[in-house]
């Protein structure tokens, strides 16, 4: 435990790795894991380092752009009645600033960081779905660029970053500006979800042997909870965006009060995303702080279990705070009190983390380097933001503070203090590892002090302006209201803050050229990413490290060994296979080696799929439906190409020999555990969307006194009920098919899948028939809108299940499955079960519930 006095290992861990592996093997691995060269190769690249650098570079660019917009905002507010920037432009500026920072900077930045450091920090070689990572970058970058293309069409969104309906609806935001907001950011949201999926699986199933859940670096805990929260938060946002886009494009009435809709529903759907979003930005930052504090305090993290549970608790609680953004909407007092209670209590886990960090510093011995300075800056700023956060969580105070500059001050204390300062700490801390060059400490300190002083000067006065009655989002204000001075201070502060950020850029580019070379472990840190060469080789680790504690580099002289069974397995894995990208899955809780599987290699298809996606969304902005169709076609081709199995050249005997010798299954295709988790997560996303639709249904029902509304009869149960029965029967068929292949009976499998398909198709046909006979449509009333939406969603998922079944059937006729390897069959069955449950929920909601209430 005594880290400061521990003598460094005789040779570096990176050299030890190569010694265990062998020089030529290491070279071969480096080639196997390299991205392809050339321009075409650039589009096929998927190495986690490369993808992460692209994501982070793009995100930082958007940070700079969003920051420039903020400077313009502050210039306009420098003096009262300023005419520097007109009201329209001003409203565009704050909309673009907020949306850019929220969607295009912090979330991608955090995910980029995770993709960059997780594989090495967890002691593995790659993320589970490198192609998904590459896809995430393409979509994020294209979505972000599309968002700014709105400037070229002079159709810049100006409804604020939360785009309240009806201001964002068809009547009050005609034209295509809001479509840019909804659809371009929709692409970026897809990117966030995609990266979230692979982060979850990487953390739970791809750690170094011995790195149990209870030894995992705290950053991994934070990212795990964050990634789960991303799935739960971004999905309702996509649902809300879809409903608003439908209102705008096909005349549905989800948010139109004149025909049964509710503008408040938008606020619910938005804030169910919007509040967790704050924690999605904050939790990764706490993870970074939990890594940096112990290293610079020269003391292991105090209260590990407490911090991990605080992170989990924060993740759960963050989902039931959303109504505190809606205290002034006129909701029932009892609702507000529930949410107020939750908003207050989330300060307990936040406080627990802060006290644990302070305790760590107290018992340690601080080393003042730039990353640590930024962490202290984070504590000083964030604690204040947290306290004002508790204040605005209290209903009466919020009635005054809401939508005033007090909120602007609070949210910047929380987001800049809680996310941006830790991001800068993390950049100073981790960049040398990956760039190979140390950043200048001297510039770093200037950078910190400029940002710290500029930030406080800019945002502290806003608290006061808010309390003095200044509402947010005003493009100007009258003199004589007593706000002038605070606005001057804020504007001056904003320029100092910007100078700090500029200094960082200078420092970064200067270091790339003239910086001192970074050693393997420049900070004497404890976690595994510092136990490989700088910059890390393509394969991360050749022989995966075996972990024996929470602080492997402080506690273990060697992280690669040859004694134990696991160490021998890791050594063997470093020597075979060398020609394909092998990675290890480990069990979730205890991190025991479970399976060796093949991580997918470079591919153009993620790019193609992303192009298809952006085509659909971009074409929909301009309502070019033919182009939308083309995009769908491209996506289908892209997905098929993406998943087309590659052949490998290792003979089956080698695999079997390895399996026999080390007692671990080897898969040259996808991993069973990873595949199972990915279908599970896909179903999770589908069900979160379902829950959002059902919530919308309930909400719209509650704002209408008659349900169904006048002139619409109660739903007819006959055909939907028969269809449901047929669908349920197909569930039995798929179960039977799966049981067949488990015992190796090929025909049994084929017949079962065919039967499932026929029953499923008949059931689907009956449901479509029932829909075609309805006397109303989505333009009739909000009832019709949500009826068609929910029904259409169910039909879409059922159709996807049938398509999946079809692909599996083709492969079953080709004889690709065996009793031992039939992951795809199992997944098809799982997906189909999920589909059936989903349909039952929809059946109950659409057809039965109106008969009950």
């Amino acid at each position, binding site marked *: 435990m005594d880290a400061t006095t521990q003598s460094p290992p005789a040779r570096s861990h990176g050299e030890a790795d190569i010694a265990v592996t062998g020089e030529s093997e290491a070279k071969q691995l480096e080639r196997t894991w390299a991205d392809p060269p050339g321009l075409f190769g650039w589009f096929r690249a998927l190495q986690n380092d490369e993808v992460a650098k692209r994501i982070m570079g793009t995100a930082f660019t958007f940070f700079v752009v969003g920051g420039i917009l903020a400077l313009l905002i502050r210039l306009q507010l420098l003096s009262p009645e300023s005419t520097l920037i007109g009201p329209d432009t001003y409203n565009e500026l704050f909309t673009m600033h907020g949306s850019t920072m929220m969607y295009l900077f912090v979330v991608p930045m955090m995910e980029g960081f995770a993709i960059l450091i997780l594989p090495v920090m967890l002691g593995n070689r790659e993320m589970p779905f490198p192609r998904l990572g590459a896809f995430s970058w393409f979509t994020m970058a294209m979505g972000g660029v599309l968002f700014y293309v709105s400037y070229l069409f002079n159709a810049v969104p100006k409804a604020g970053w939360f785009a309240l309906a009806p201001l964002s609806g068809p009547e009050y935001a005609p034209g295509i500006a809001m479509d840019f907001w909804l659809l371009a950011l929709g692409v970026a949201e897809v990117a966030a979800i995609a990266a979230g999926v692979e982060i979850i699986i990487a953390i739970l199933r791809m750690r170094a042997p011995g790195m*149990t*859940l*209870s*030894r995992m670096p705290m950053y991994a805990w934070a990212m795990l909870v964050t990634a789960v929260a991303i799935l739960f938060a971004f999905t309702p946002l996509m649902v809300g965006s879809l409903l608003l886009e439908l209102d705008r494009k096909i005349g549905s009435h989800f948010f139109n009060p004149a025909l049964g809709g509710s503008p408040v529903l938008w606020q619910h759907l938005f804030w169910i995303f919007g509040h967790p979003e704050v924690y999605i930005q904050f939790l990764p930052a706490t993870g970074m702080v939990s890594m940096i504090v112990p290293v610079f305090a020269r003391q*292991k993290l105090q209260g*590990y*279990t*407490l911090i*991990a*549970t605080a992170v*989990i*608790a924060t993740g*759960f*609680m963050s*989902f*039931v705070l959303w109504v505190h953004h809606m205290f002034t909407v*006129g*909701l*029932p*007092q*009892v*609702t*507000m*009190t*529930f*949410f*107020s*209670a*939750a908003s*207050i*209590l989330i300060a*307990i*886990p936040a406080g627990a983390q802060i006290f644990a960090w302070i305790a760590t510093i107290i018992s340690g011995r601080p080393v003042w380097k730039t990353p640590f300075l930024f962490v202290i800056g984070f504590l000083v700023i964030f604690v204040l933001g947290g306290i004002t956060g508790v204040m605005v969580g209290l209903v009466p105070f919020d*009635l005054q503070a809401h939508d005033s500059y007090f909120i602007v001050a609070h949210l910047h204390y929380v987001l800049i203090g809680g996310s941006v300062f830790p991001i800068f700490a993390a950049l100073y801390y981790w960049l040398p590892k990956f760039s190979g060059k140390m950043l200048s400490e001297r510039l770093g300190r200037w950078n910190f002090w400029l940002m710290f002083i500029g930030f406080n000067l800019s945002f502290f006065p806003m608290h006061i302006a808010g309390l003095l009655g200044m509402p947010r989002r005003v493009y100007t204000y009258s003199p004589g209201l007593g706000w002038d001075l605070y606005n001057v201070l804020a504007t001056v502060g904003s320029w100092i803050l910007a100078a700090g950020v500029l200094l960082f850029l200078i420092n970064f580019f200067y270091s790339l050229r003239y910086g001192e070379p970074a050693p393997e472990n420049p900070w004497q840190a404890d976690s595994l990413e510092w136990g490989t060469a700088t910059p890390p080789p393509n394969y991360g680790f050749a022989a995966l490290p075996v972990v024996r*504690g*929470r602080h492997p580099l402080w506690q273990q002289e060697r992280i690669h060994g040859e004694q134990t069974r696991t160490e021998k397995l890791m050594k063997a894995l470093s020597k075979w296979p060398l020609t394909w990208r092998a990675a290890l899955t480990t*069990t*979730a*809780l*205890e991190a*025991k*080696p*479970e*399976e060796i599987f093949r991580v997918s290699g470079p591919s153009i298809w993620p790019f193609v799929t992303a192009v298809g996606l952006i085509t659909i969304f971009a074409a929909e902005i301009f309502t070019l439906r033919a182009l939308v169709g083309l995009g769908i076609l491209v996506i289908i081709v892209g997905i098929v190409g993406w998943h087309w199995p590659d052949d490998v050249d290792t003979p089956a005997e080698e695999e079997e020999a390895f399996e026999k010798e080390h*007692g*671990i*299954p080897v898969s040259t295709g996808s991993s*069973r555990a990873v595949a199972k988790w990915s279908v599970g997560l896909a179903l999770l996303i589908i069900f979160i969307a379902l829950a959002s639709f059902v919530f919308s249904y*309930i*909400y719209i029902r*509650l*704002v209408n006194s008659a349900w169904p509304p006048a002139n619409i009869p109660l739903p007819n149960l006959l055909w939907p009920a028969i269809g449901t029965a047929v669908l349920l029967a197909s569930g039995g068929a798929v179960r039977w098919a*799966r*049981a067949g292949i*488990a015992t190796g009976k090929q025909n049994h499998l084929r017949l079962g899948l065919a039967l499932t398909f026929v029953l499923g198709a008949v059931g689907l046909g009956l449901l479509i028939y029932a829909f075609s006979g309805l006397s109303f449509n989505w333009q009739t009333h909000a009832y019709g809108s949500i009826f068609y939406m929910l029904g259409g969603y169910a039909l879409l998922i059922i159709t996807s299940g049938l398509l999946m079944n079809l692909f599996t059937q083709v492969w079953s006729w080709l004889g690709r499955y065996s009793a*031992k390897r039939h992951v795809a069959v*199992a997944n098809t069955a799982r997906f189909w079960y999920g589909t059936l449950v989903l349909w039952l929920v929809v059946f109950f909601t659409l057809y039965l519930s109106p008969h009950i*209430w």
Partner: protein
Amino acid sequence: MTETIPPNEPGTGNGRSRALWIGLLAGPVIWSIYFVIIYLLAEIACGLNLLQFTVWGVSIILLLVQVITVLALLPILYIGFQAYRRWQRLRHDEIEIGEQPAEFMALGGVLLGLLFALATLVTGVSALVVQPCRWI
């Protein structure tokens, strides 16, 4: 499950692992479900004007909220207590607290159980003091 079980997954049966996960996450999961239920109940009761139905002068809905609060509190406390006993059994004082996976999960369960029991209590009690369906 018809798939082959990996050969080198010793003594950690799926059952034990599941018990550990339940012990860790029961508190937050139950509280989240509880919260969604009482929130929707409040929305529905105020939306459909159900507060007027009373029994012995007490609104049925408000009574229901309290009953649900107790129903949520009991399993949180029970599972939290189980986690506490497991932690007492498993704790090693000679190494770092919670470094063994099972001990970690048990201790985490205790902490989360405590926090979310408090959260349930505060949420439930707060419903008693306000005028339910009015804004202010």
